[in-house]
Structure formats: structure tokens, C-alpha cells
């Protein structure tokens, strides 16, 4: 193994076979979330607790709906990457690790689908 250069080690992609892809995706989504968070959070916070009609009217706006959908997609993709690291670090039992890994993937994609569907339904007229 000592004959391998650092570059070869990287292109060899390790046991996960995807090299630095995980870190890169985390960085890309984090930059996106730095932009999306202020666009989303004030609108979301201002209407949390308001009556149903107001929420439907606000998220009926295409721009507000789109920001909310993209926020949910990127957030849960970033969460999936982050939770995966935490699972890999703290759960060593193979069975539990596999269960947690699958649970993480299922939960995050389910949340993406649910959030996108919900906001799209509101935007198209609930």
C-alpha cells in the first residue's frame, strides 16, 4: 500500500467507491442552504400559527412556494448526508448500523416527497 500516491488513493475511491463525493455534496448543499435559509425562514416563521386561509394564500404565491420546496429538498438531502456521518461514527453494530442507514435514507426522501407534494398541492390550489 505504501507504493500508492495520495492521488491514486483518492481515485481508488476507498471502500465506499465514491471518494470525496460525500464531502463535496455536503459543501455544495451547505452553500445552497446559506442562501435558502434567509429566503425561507422569515416567511415560514411569520406564518406559523396563522389561520389556514392565510397560509394557503401565502404559499399560493409561486415564488414563495418554490423557495419552500427547494428549501425542503436541499435541507433533507443535507440532513441525509449529515445523519449518515453520525450513524457511521457512533453505531458500530452491523445490524443496527444498517437499520439506521436505511431508516435515514427512507426518512429523508419521504420528508422530501411529503414536503414537495404538500406545498405543490397548496400552490396549485388545495
Amino acid at each position, binding site marked *: *500500500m*505504501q507504493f*500508492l500516491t*495520495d492521488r491514486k*488513493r483518492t481515485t481508488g475511491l476507498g471502500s465506499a467507491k465514491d471518494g470525496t463525493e460525500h464531502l463535496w455534496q455536503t*459543501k455544495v448543499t*451547505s*452553500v445552497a*442552504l*446559506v442562501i435558502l*435559509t434567509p429566503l425561507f*425562514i*422569515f416567511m*415560514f*416563521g*411569520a406564518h*406559523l*400559527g396563522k389561520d*389556514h386561509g392565510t*397560509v*394557503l394564500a401565502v*404559499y399560493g404565491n409561486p415564488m414563495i412556494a418554490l423557495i*419552500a420546496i427547494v428549501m*425542503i429538498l436541499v*435541507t*433533507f438531502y443535507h*440532513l441525509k448526508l*449529515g*445523519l449518515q456521518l*453520525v450513524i457511521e461514527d457512533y453505531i458500530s453494530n452491523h445490524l443496527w448500523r444498517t437499520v439506521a442507514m436505511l431508516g435515514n435514507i427512507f426518512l429523508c426522501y419521504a*420528508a422530501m416527497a*411529503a*414536503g414537495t*407534494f*404538500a*406545498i405543490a*398541492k*397548496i400552490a396549485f390550489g*388545495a
Partner: protein
Amino acid sequence: MADVNRGNRPLSPHLTIYRPQITSVLSILMRITGVGMTLGSLLAVWWFLAAASGPEYYDYVNGIVTSWLGGLIMLASLWALWYHVCNGLRYLFWFEAKHLDVDKVTRSGQAVVAASVILTLLTLIIIL
């Protein structure tokens, strides 16, 4: 690299005998806020799903999310979000090998804590 120079080197001190420092505490907080926000983000999705479902179910879920406990979770998530964003920016600088000196890391850590509190209060002022 995992396979290079893996000699008989000493292990790093165990966590429990290591004096907490702002750098280590903020590092652990980054994970805690990230994992913790799972709950707040799922509540947000549930709230959107309820709004899409109809007025009765919306009132029910909206009541839970804005209840004493739900409100506390959302408030904690708001601070966690701003902390995670600010500290995440700090990580992005580190990835470019910038601001990594000990005194800079300490000062940027203090700045991140201050910014997260200020942004949380600012958000509350704007939305309430």
C-alpha cells in the same frame, strides 16, 4: 491517510478527561444542532402537509406546533439553524485552509455564537 505511518503512536486523550474548550464545545454543538434539527424540520413538513390536507387537520397540527412544547422546539430549532449556518460558514473557510490559527479559530467561534444569538433575536423581532 489511513494506511500511512500507522506506527505505535499514542491514542488521543479520552473525551472525559479532556478540558472543554470553545473549539471542542462548538464542534460538538455543530453535530447536536444538526441532529436536533431533524425534529424541527419534520415538524415543519408535517405543518405543510396539514395545511395541504384541510382546515380541521391544519388547526390540529398548527396547535401542536405552536403549543408550549412545540413552540419551544421551534425556538430551539431557530437558534440551532442560525448557529449551524454561521458555524457552517466557518467550516467552509477551514476547507479552503483559511483562518485555521488557534487565536483565529477561537475568535471566529466567539463571533459565531454572538451572530447566532443576534440572528435568532432579529428573526423573532421580524416574524412576531
